[in-house]
């Protein structure tokens, strides 16, 4: 697998390597220069040594000559010249000892100095004999002092010192030359390597810049495309920061607010929407800044004339630490939908009203005929009128249920909440359903439980649910069957169950039981005279009351429908 290193890794590697090479070459160059300086210093010191040695040896010769002259003349002036030369020779040999390098050279100098001192001492003795005993005595002493052999030995030592110094100098020069060559070689390669790194770095930078340009180009193209898309979307898309300042918006936003981009970007929503609209939506903004998405509808008119309705969705944006730093806005104009919704509601309401008017006449007429108010009917006619009455009732229920379903779907079913005792409400519902139960030959048994359960509900709507469950149970019970109604408390919930001993709910129908127009089959609906909307309405009401409704099989046959609603908090 080929690993692609990032630009920063590559550049850091190249810079690090280059720096290391620079340090290495610099160190080598410094050491090489240091060695050359040392070598130069050493060469100078060595030449000075040799020069001093030569001067010393010449001085010895001059002292000896001065002494010989004094021996021959015996003049006091020559003696003074001799003594002055002696003092000078002793100083030079001590100064030379400070610049010698090797032990061998030090040894030679010590021996030379000893010999020179001995030689000087003998010269002094001879000069002293000349002064006290005369030339002959001095001449005899010179013959016995082996002066010539001492001179040769001193010359030999001087030659040794000179040769060793020159050899040491040559070795040093050779080492320095080799070291300088090696250093030069390494510096040259270092420079070559550094140049290679430089070229590499330039290639890497060039490629990186090319890639970055391509990426920027792609980003611009993508941004342009995104901008085109967001501008073309028939919705307002925007982003606002935590302070509610617009940081992004699409063209429809500008048209909506009738503002150019420069008078929109950076402005607060309060400024853009006005305080009245903003105060209305502020709780939703607080909600989204709390980290939760928000969805709501609101009226707004940018020109102060045309009333329009909008649906807004706010989605929080979080940073890597999970803090909300702003929110996205998606706003759509739902004025037309609202109008359609209003027309639909109006249509349903009108149809409902228009259906009820003829139904009133039909039902009323049939009711009077069936009751014998207009005279006794033949048996066949009585049966037919009974069928007509029953189906008229069914049509009335259907109209009612359609109206309720539409109101629930459009969110217009208002609830008037009050705290009541559930058992009393259920008992009242059972009484209201007595006639229906008797018609189906069903007996209703009610167990209200040991403790009264208080719930916060809309009484009329809950009665509607209970009667619906009761009438269903009566309809589907076997003739002479029993319907059991019971209230129990389950934790913080009051549960009402209505059980029958009917055929139960077919397995393949259970999933759609609470859906609109749900029917196990058409014959079933006809037999029971239902509209297919009752349980759907029941679910809608119970959910509005904060509860849930469900169904379960009854052991031994039949069904149990139940709902659970919250127990009211104690005042």
């Amino acid at each position, binding site marked *: 697998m080929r690993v692609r290193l990032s630009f920063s890794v590559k550049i850091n590697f190249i810079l690090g390597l280059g720096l290391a090479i620079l340090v290495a070459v610099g160190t080598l160059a410094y050491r090489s220069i240091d060695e050359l300086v040392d070598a130069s210093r050493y060469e100078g010191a060595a030449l000075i040594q040799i020069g001093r040695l030569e001067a010393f040896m010449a001085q010895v010769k001059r002292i000896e000559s001065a002494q010989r002259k004094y021996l021959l003349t015996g003049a006091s002036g020559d003696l003074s010249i001799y003594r002055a030369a002696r003092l000078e020779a002793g100083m030079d040999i001590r100064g030379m000892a400070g610049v010698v390098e090797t032990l061998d050279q030090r040894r030679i100098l010590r021996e030379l100095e000893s010999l020179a001192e001995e030689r000087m001492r003998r010269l002094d003795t001879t000069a002293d004999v000349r002064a006290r005993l005369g030339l002959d005595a001095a001449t005899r002493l010179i013959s016995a002092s082996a002066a010539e052999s001492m001179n040769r030995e001193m010359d030999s030592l001087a030659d040794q010192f000179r040769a060793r110094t020159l050899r040491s100098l040559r070795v040093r020069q050779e080492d320095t030359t080799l070291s300088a060559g090696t250093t030069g070689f390494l510096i040259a390669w270092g420079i070559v390597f550094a140049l290679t790194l430089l070229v590499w770095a330039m290639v890497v930078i060039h490629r990186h810049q090319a890639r970055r340009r391509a990426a920027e180009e792609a980003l611009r193209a993508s941004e342009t495309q995104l901008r085109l898309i967001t501008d073309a979307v028939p919705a307002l898309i925007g982003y606002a920061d935590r302070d509610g300042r617009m940081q992004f918006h699409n063209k429809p936003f500008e048209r909506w607010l009738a503002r150019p981009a420069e008078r929109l970007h950076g402005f607060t929503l309060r400024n853009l929407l006005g305080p009245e609209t903003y105060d209305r939506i502020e709780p939703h903004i607080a909600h989204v800044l709390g980290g939760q998405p928000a969805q709501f509808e609101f009226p707004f008119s940018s020109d102060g004339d045309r009333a329009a309705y909008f649906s807004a969705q706010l989605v929080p944006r979080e940073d890597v630490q999970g803090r909300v730093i702003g929110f996205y806005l998606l706003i759509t104009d739902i004025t037309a939908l609202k109008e359609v919704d209003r027309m639909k509601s109006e249509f349903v309401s009108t149809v409902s009203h228009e259906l*009820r008017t003829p*139904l*009133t*006449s039909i039902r*009323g007429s049939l009711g*009077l005929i069936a009751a014998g*108010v207009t005279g006794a009917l033949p048996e066949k006619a009585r049966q037919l009128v009974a069928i007509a009455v029953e189906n008229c009732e069914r049509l009335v229920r259907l109209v009612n249920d359609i109206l309720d379903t539409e109101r629930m779907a459009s969110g217009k079913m208002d609830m008037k909440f009050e705290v009541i005792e559930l058992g009393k409400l259920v008992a009242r519902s059972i009484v209201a359903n007595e006639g229906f139960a008797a018609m189906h030959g069903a007996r209703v048994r009610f167990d209200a439980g040991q403790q009264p359960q208080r719930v916060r509900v809309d009484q009329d709507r809950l009665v509607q649910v209970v009667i619906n469950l009761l009438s269903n149970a009566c309809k589907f019970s076997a003739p002479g069957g029993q319907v059991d109604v019971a209230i129990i408390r389950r934790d913080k919930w009051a549960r009402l169950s209505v059980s029958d001993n009917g055929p139960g709910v077919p397995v393949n129908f259970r999933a759609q039981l609470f859906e609109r127009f749900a029917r196990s089959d058409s014959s079933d609906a006809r037999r029971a005279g239902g509209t297919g909307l009752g349980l759907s309405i029941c679910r809608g009401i119970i959910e509005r009351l904060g509860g849930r409704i469900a169904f379960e099989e009854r052991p031994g046959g039949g069904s149990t429908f139940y709902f659970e609603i919250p127990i009211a908090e104690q005042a």
Partner: protein
Amino acid sequence: MSADKNEELKKIMLVEDDADIRTVATMALEMVGGMQVHAFGSGEEAIAAVAGLAPQLIMLDVMMPGMNGPEVLVRIRERVETADIPVVFMTAKVQPEEVERLRTLGVLDVIAKPFDPMTLPDTIKGLWANRPRV
């Protein structure tokens, strides 16, 4: 108006623009309930006749061409001789908020259409019996 608590309800004014409903309601109230019904097809006719007729109770349809039920009610309440006659609305608009709105206009109750003709007389008599006394 008489305030006799035990006074029997005998004379009713029915205002309903739909002739069929008018007929059915009249038959139900008369043949089942044994009451005397004076039926009118519009609010204007009813207003013209109400003072002279002096019904014990008025059943008033809400939606009618011309003057609707609430407008007729206002006119009835404006006249001293008819101001205290109990009124019951009949309506096919049974949305709870609509019914609630009608109740706040000062009527005994609102009867939803379609009604059961056999129980209608008892319903009306019950409302009459429990009417607030003047």
